[in-house]
């Protein structure tokens, strides 16, 4: 049952819908599975859609039949006395409205909720080699690797073809962790820890979004999951676990000072320095990330600079104030410093 009872049986895949859905960039596509979980769900979808179209076709056929027969007899004939064809009507109603749906839905129920559900179920504690902790914040994701000191944000790395147990929590409101190509979604509830399995068939980068409405910037709460070859992953994790490197060059050193003595340290952590707040994302290895602010903007020096100066422009309402009042020199210096935090 495990990986893909339903796989390979997409004969029913509907041509029109399939055409519409194919080749669409495959960015965050529930029908472009990259794990056995997601693939089972996708097969389930195609099967259901196939049967659903048949059901719809039956109904449309009946309506068209009525249309064809409309001119049959003079109107008004059937309003009194016996009801013509009532018996046939009852047969169809009982067969189409009771018997067939019960059979079909029972089949669906058993397949989906007794079998497929097993593959998507959360793994038991300690059943996997690694657990990752994801904490939702308004409006970004904190990512921790228990057992190491690695902390990062919005970009999760996992080893490919290795089941990972993901624990999700929230620091404020309800969010929902969702990377459709890998698995179904799971909400983050206050006061509770929820779990889900993360597994990727192939090396690659998979996009996800916060799926539960969580306030102003719910639209900008993306997440990337990188499935790396195990060795690459191990190196990445080792690098992430290290504290930040000392700045090289006077500009970066000035940036470090500005960061630690200014407002930044009130919200951000850079391991290995005195900045240790958890309000905003951990910036120890911020330069290692490809994007800023939960996939809102690319992580390039100029975007980083602009983000610090005016974060509210990119993500209006986000919890980091714009720092337009800082001098251009300082922002440059801080940017230079952060750029070195590989």
């Amino acid at each position, binding site marked *: 049952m495990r990986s893909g009872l339903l796989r390979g049986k997409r004969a029913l895949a509907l041509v029109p819908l399939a055409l*519409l859905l194919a080749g*669409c960039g495959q*960015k*965050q*596509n529930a029908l472009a599975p990259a794990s056995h979980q997601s693939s*089972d769900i996708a097969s*389930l979808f195609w099967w*259901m*859609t196939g049967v*659903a179209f048949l*059901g719809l076709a039956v*109904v449309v056929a*009946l*309506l068209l039949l*009525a249309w064809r*027969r*409309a001119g*049959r007899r003079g*109107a*008004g004939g*059937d*309003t009194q006395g016996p*009801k013509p*064809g*009532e018996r*046939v*009507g*009852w047969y*169809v109603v009982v067969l*189409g409205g*009771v018997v067939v*749906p019960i059979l079909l*839905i*029972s089949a*669906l*129920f058993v397949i*989906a*909720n007794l079998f497929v*559900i097993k593959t*998507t*179920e959360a793994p038991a504690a300690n059943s996997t080699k690694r657990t990752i902790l994801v904490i939702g914040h308004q409006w970004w994701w904190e990512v921790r690797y228990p057992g190491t000191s690695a902390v990062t944000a919005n970009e999760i790395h996992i080893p490919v073809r290795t089941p990972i147990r993901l624990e999700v929590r929230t620091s*404020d*409101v*309800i969010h*929902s962790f969702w990377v459709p190509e890998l698995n179904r*979604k*799971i909400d983050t*509830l206050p*006061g509770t820890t929820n779990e889900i399995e993360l597994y990727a068939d192939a090396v690659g980068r998979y*996009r996800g*979004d916060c*799926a*539960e*409405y*969580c*306030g*102003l910037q*719910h*639209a900008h709460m993306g997440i990337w999951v990188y499935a790396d070859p195990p060795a690459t992953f191990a190196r990445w994790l080792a690098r992430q676990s290290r504290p930040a490197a000392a700045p090289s060059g006077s500009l970066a050193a000035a940036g470090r000072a500005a960061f630690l003595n200014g407002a930044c340290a009130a919200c951000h952590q850079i391991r290995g320095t005195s900045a240790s707040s958890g309000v905003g994302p951990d910036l120890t290895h911020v330069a290692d990330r490809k994007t800023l602010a939960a996939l809102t903007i690319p992580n390039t020096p100029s975007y980083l600079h602009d983000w610090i100066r005016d974060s509210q422009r990119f993500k*209006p309402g986000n919890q980091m104030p714009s720092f337009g009042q800082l001098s251009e020199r300082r922002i440059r210096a801080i940017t230079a410093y952060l750029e070195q935090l590989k």
Partner: protein
Amino acid sequence: MERLEVMWQSRPGVLGWLMTTDHKRIGLLYFWTTLVLFGAGGVEALLMRTQLVKPNNSIVSPETYDQLFTLHGLTMIFFFIIPMTTGAFGNYLIPLMIGARDMAFPRMNALSYWIFLASAIFLYTSLALGMAPDAGWFDYVPLANKTFSPGHNIDFYALAVIFNSIASTLTAGQFIVTIFKSRAPGMSFNRMPLFCFAFLAASFGLLFALPPLSADNIFLFLDRNIGTHFFDPSHGGAALLWQHLFWIFGHPEVYILIVPAFGIATSIIPAFTQRKLVAFPLVAIAELLVVFIGFGVWAHHMFATGMSTTALIFFAGATSMVVIPSTIQVFAWCMSFVLGVARFKTPLLFIAGFIFMFVTGGLTGIMFVAIPFDQQVTDTYFIIAHFHYIIFGAAVFPIFGGMYYWFPKVTGKLYFERPGQISFWLIFAGTNLLFFPMHIVGLLGMPRRVYTYPSNLGWTTYNVIETIGGYLTLVGILVLFGNLVWSYFRAPAAGPDPWHGPTLEWTTSSPPPEYDFAVIPKVSSAYPNWDPEDREEDRRKLAGGVLVLDQGHEQVEVTPVDGWLSRVAEMPHESPWPVLLALCLSLVFVMLLLQHFAIAGLMAILCVLTLLGWHGKEPEE
């Protein structure tokens, strides 16, 4: 006859409308009010669609967008469909269909309208003040807590919803009693039109679904304003409590939205196929059953919250059962189309369209029975597609069809057929363009409630199509109303029964007189207007003065099940108290909003005093 005219005459002018207790006038008041609110909800929707027409658009700010979708959802559900179906259609038609002269409690009926109107004004005041609710129509905590929503937005939500549900509860209770007690003698339960079964089901649904919602909102209001901890896990509360109570209301609610539409469909189908509905008893039972089972499925809205698998499977099981009453009805309707002689006039076209849309949306609904699939698509546009197909296609289409169908009854004029059909096809094309791509874009990963989206995820084209569909729908709706307005002024007179309709409303003149029926009609089947001998007998009774009840403001009461005549009751007439009471109640809510709890208490005492006045004058004997 003249005596009846005198006894039932209502005061002319505005005062007459303010004090009216006539179910037809109240129905019309509901109709116009909800229509305006539909316009508001539609404008909000089109603003959203305009914002989403391209990626990274900035026509509206995120704050505004959040208020738009929340208000859109609230308006469409609480202030359009429910009051339009129950308030407008139900009020106008139920007494006419059961052969009564008014509702069982006419003043309470007026009260429910005025409370509804006040709650709508209350909610929209928040928009004018820029403080409209912004946490979504299901308003999850903790986002809706004081910590994360410090403004008054959510207080408006909680109070408006409670306020509005008072009106709906009154309407629901009213319908139940009216249907039980005020039917024409002879109309036993099994001879009741399916329309009334449907409204009975919806009313029971409202009666039992609204209290959990009120409880939930009372908790929310207290959490926000006096520091209780119902939803606060750090003090022993639970965020999921909100969701449970909300959806214990919320799921029955969606059937409450649809069941009256079933009722409208089952009125139109026999009239336009000239055949009694296939499998009548099954359909009647199904209408009641769908609401009943609907109370046991709520957690299918919470599949991704991490509840235990056992609980999920239980609720998925219940959800698969709730489907059966719907499939029964779909096939009964379709077979009636086939076995009768379908005249595809505008009303029937809307019903055919409704069946198509309902089946499409229902089939995606069934897909959610597959828990893993639901967990994959929940909170995406796939859900938006599911319920707009069902809500727009299956609840609004019959409303439109019903507007055409009963237009001759209410106005006494026919409507123009050609533009009617055009409006149908425009709306049909528009809604499918609008809502079908939402399935795809949802599968492509687009979450709901996002004020904008990135350009590189392949969502843009679908969103453009959706927006075009939205505007096409608007054009269709404008043609529809334009046609009706035009018909009102220009179309030929309709006469009492232009369709040879099956039910009692077609036996009286168009528009019906204030006393509805000159004589309490005789009923011996569920299709009384197709029983010519009974109508003949009515005429004889009228001539002989039997059951004319012209000695006062009188109406019969019957035994609830068999419809045996039980007594003749004197009904209250025009009254100023309903408006006044609604006004006092509004003051209570305003004071609660402003957190002047003591003054709110005083206002509540004012309400009690008003009630004293209301009951001051006893009916004469």
